């Protein structure tokens, strides 16, 4: 279909076209409050077309199976007629790296197998006074991208998501703790065990509630708790933010003193076993590893084709597009520190919470989840969030969970000096990171 569509588009445009076609099937199972409740399937097919005509770019998308190709081309042309001029070159055919994206065991896993995995997880999490939700989803997809310059790619992919959360309500104290596995292949029994162990370990430590400390303190952020500290940085490393003049990191590439010398960040679209990995991006640019920050020095920003064209840069293979709207620059697998080795890498939480960073803390916090991450003026770097799940650390030991506390600071100040990286690097969604110790984080209590 995509070839006929491009052929049709080529006849009506003077600057070429590209298109993405995607078919997704999902099977999902949900256990609600400890009981298997529902099973579902999803089948979705859509196509997104971009044309360049008269120097301007237009897009159109549809999920309607009965759409006429001529209609879709006409809508894209109408969109281009209003567009602004951009010198968008569609990339020519180029070698595409081999990236395994489809795993038979995951793609062919039966509904019963998903249900069994869910039951196994429920059994491991059963505990007096607690309720458990478990959700499992298997996705298979077929993606085709092509452009009028002769570049094309097509791949099948599989993805498995398993998530569990435990709810403990005692009077008005509500504690919710969860963890998840995301991978392109089925989780091993060890990986499922790790989800349960991660939840149980953190739950055991949370049963005692202690008063929060106060002041500028050492705080260890777990791989999950790091979200608030990395979000402004990834936003600022987007070529789009640079182009718009709102990136605090613009123009700082190659300079020292911006981040701690031990801070390295990369984006790896070729990482084996990750659902976000792919051989080619959604605009026919081959995938690669992009070093964003190396030993504290900013190396590169991410670009899709249009942002790159406007910024007079090269696409870094970060074009992401859905069925509706135009492509945007987006990350794949963000890795803090050295790139992980091995398929799927570790999902396991280490036995020791805090990744070995707590030993020298006289009084501080271990932060696992914050409330309100992503709200407010993120890219500026200032943050202030109440804790959802955090533990007090006294004389190197976790003494209990703290409630009614908030942490605040400026990420660009905090990342200048890192107290240490933990030995517990793991995947949390599409981010791979260890725990991190930062000094002088403001902690407020009520």
């Amino acid at each position, binding site marked *: 279909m995509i070839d006929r569509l491009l052929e049709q588009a080529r006849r009506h445009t003077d600057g070429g076209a590209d298109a993405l076609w995607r078919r997704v099937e999902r099977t999902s*199972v949900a256990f609600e*409050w400890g*009981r*298997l*409740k*529902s*099973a*579902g*399937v*999803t*089948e*979705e*097919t859509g196509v997104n077309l971009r044309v360049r005509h008269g120097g301007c770019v*237009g897009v*159109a*998308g*549809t*999920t*309607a*199976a009965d759409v006429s190709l001529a209609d879709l081309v006409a*809508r894209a042309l109408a*969109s281009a007629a*209003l*567009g602004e001029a951009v010198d968008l070159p569609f990339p020519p055919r180029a070698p595409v790296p081999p990236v395994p994206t489809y795993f038979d065991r995951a793609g062919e896993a039966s509904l019963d197998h998903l*249900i069994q995995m869910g039951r196994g997880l429920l059994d491991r999490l059963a505990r007096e006074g607690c*309720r458990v939700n478990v959700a499992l989803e298997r996705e298979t997809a077929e993606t085709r991208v092509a452009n009028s310059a002769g570049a094309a790619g097509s791949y099948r992919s599989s993805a498995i998501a398993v998530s569990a959360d435990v*709810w*403990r*309500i*005692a009077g*008005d*104290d*509500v504690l919710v703790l969860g963890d998840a596995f995301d991978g392109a292949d089925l989780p091993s029994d060890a990986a499922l065990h790790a989800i349960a162990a991660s939840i149980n370990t953190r739950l055991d430590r949370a049963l005692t509630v202690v008063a929060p400390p106060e*002041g500028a303190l050492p705080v260890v952020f777990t791989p999950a708790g790091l979200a608030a500290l990395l979000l402004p940085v990834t936003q600022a490393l987007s070529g789009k933010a640079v182009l*718009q003049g*709102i990136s*605090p990191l613009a123009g700082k590439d190659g300079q020292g003193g911006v981040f701690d010398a031990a801070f390295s960040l990369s984006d790896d679209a070729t990482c084996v076993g990750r659902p976000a990995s792919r051989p080619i991006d959604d605009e026919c640019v081959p995938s690669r590893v992009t070093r964003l920050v190396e030993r504290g020095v900013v190396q590169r920003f991410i670009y899709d084709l249009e942002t790159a064209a406007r910024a007079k840069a090269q696409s870094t293979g970060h074009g992401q597009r859905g*069925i*509706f*709207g*135009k492509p945007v620059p987006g990350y794949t697998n963000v890795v803090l520190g050295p790139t992980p080795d091995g398929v799927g890498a570790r999902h396991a939480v280490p036995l020791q919470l805090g990744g070995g960073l707590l030993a020298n803390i006289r009084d501080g916090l271990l932060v696992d*989840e914050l*409330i*309100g991450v*992503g*709200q*407010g*003026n993120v*890219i500026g770097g*200032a943050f202030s*969030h*109440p804790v*959802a799940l955090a533990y007090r650390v006294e004389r190197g030991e976790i003494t209990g969970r703290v*409630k*009614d506390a*908030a942490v*605040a600071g400026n990420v660009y100040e905090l990342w200048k000096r890192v107290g240490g990286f933990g030995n517990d690097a793991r995947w949390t969604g599409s981010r791979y990171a260890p725990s991190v110790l930062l000094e*002088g984080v403001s902690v*407020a209590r*009520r």
Partner: protein
Amino acid sequence: MIDRLTAALGRSRADYTEIRVERTWSTAVTFRGRRLESATASEDQGGFVRVLNRAAGWGVASFTSLDRLDAMVARAHELSRAVRVDPPIRLADVAPHQAEAMLDLDGDVRGVSLAEKKRLLEAYNGAMLAVSDRIVDTLATYRDEVSEYWFVNSDGTILHELRPEVTLSGTAVARRDGTIEKGLESVGLRRGWNSVQDGLAGFRTAAERAVQLLDAPMVRGGTYPVILDPELAGVFIHEAFGHLSEADFVYENPQARAMMTLGRRFGKPVLHVGDNGAAPGLRGTLPFDDEGTPTQDTPLITAGVLVGRLHSRETAATMGERPTGNARAVSFRHAPIVRMTNTYIGNGRGTFDDLIRDVTLGVYACSAFGGQTLLENFSFTAAYGHMIRDGHVAELIKDVVLAGNLFQTLDRIDHIAGDFRWNQMGGGCGKGGQYPLAVTEGAPHMRIEEALVGGDVPA
């Protein structure tokens, strides 16, 4: 279409079957800075089937190809049978309805050219850029849709609706050296083209605010008496209390049920809260929910006491209560779950000045950048604020983040003014992977005797 759906219902072997089909035409225009990012027209369509069998669970299927309708009904039946459930799932009775509801399109957006929509947004975006050369970036979006909706179920309900929606939003980013601030404007209406013609002033104000915030100090962290403006009060009641009143949170969780026992006191007698899916002319308003239950006004807190909660047919049956018309899905891609519609804090008495008259040092928190709740704990980021000094509104402040415990905070609401208004904003509510759901919030100004305000914390 109705004939096609009822025929498919007739062929279903399940005890209960529902089918929903949607066809949505939408256009979207986006400006970033001075540049048009995109102007597009899209068409989205698909169906959703959900079935239930005795001693079995829900089987659900969603699909974009309507040719697959019969196959998906059969597949949902198989899935349901594969899920053994004990005790069985029951659904509360709802009388069958047959209705054609063609909402007022108020200037059908499908009859307006993409070029006209671009011109409108260009003017609004231009108003933000014209405020100051400190405005270094803007993001302005216009989105509209008309959705044709069909719903049938095996209880005999047959619905056919035409639903319009139009949303406008603007973000203005002001910068001076390393300081970056933003101002927001957002409008969301279940109406059409005629309703979005006078938005210029709102966009300009957002940009002016961003520039003013460059010079505003960060609020000093601590506890204060806090007055919320109607917009932030609305977001607060939605996030901090509304989600707890969704019965899927409590119906099969004995501890949660104990925490949310009807008759429990949650606040002072001034506090009245409800959810009204039938309120005329609001974005969260529809005649029926996505299970075919009529929408209604549901009191949740009356004079400080918990009196009700929001239900689907399943949660209502389990708890022996009545369905409230709150089972909603964002699209054919999802199953209906318990959601809010138009959530409100009821009107109080007096004016804004009455709330601040006896406050010597406090915070006036206005508008919302966002809010998140983790049940008993919440966090809201006000778009801006003012200090209140000796009974008067004083200097502009920024980075006003309100954090707290729900139970304590509700109980500390001690004064509610009589200046209620609905806030017709864009965006929407997210839950269970379903975002953005069209909802509205409404409230008067209200005062919290004491609340934790995050910000600059002295080391």
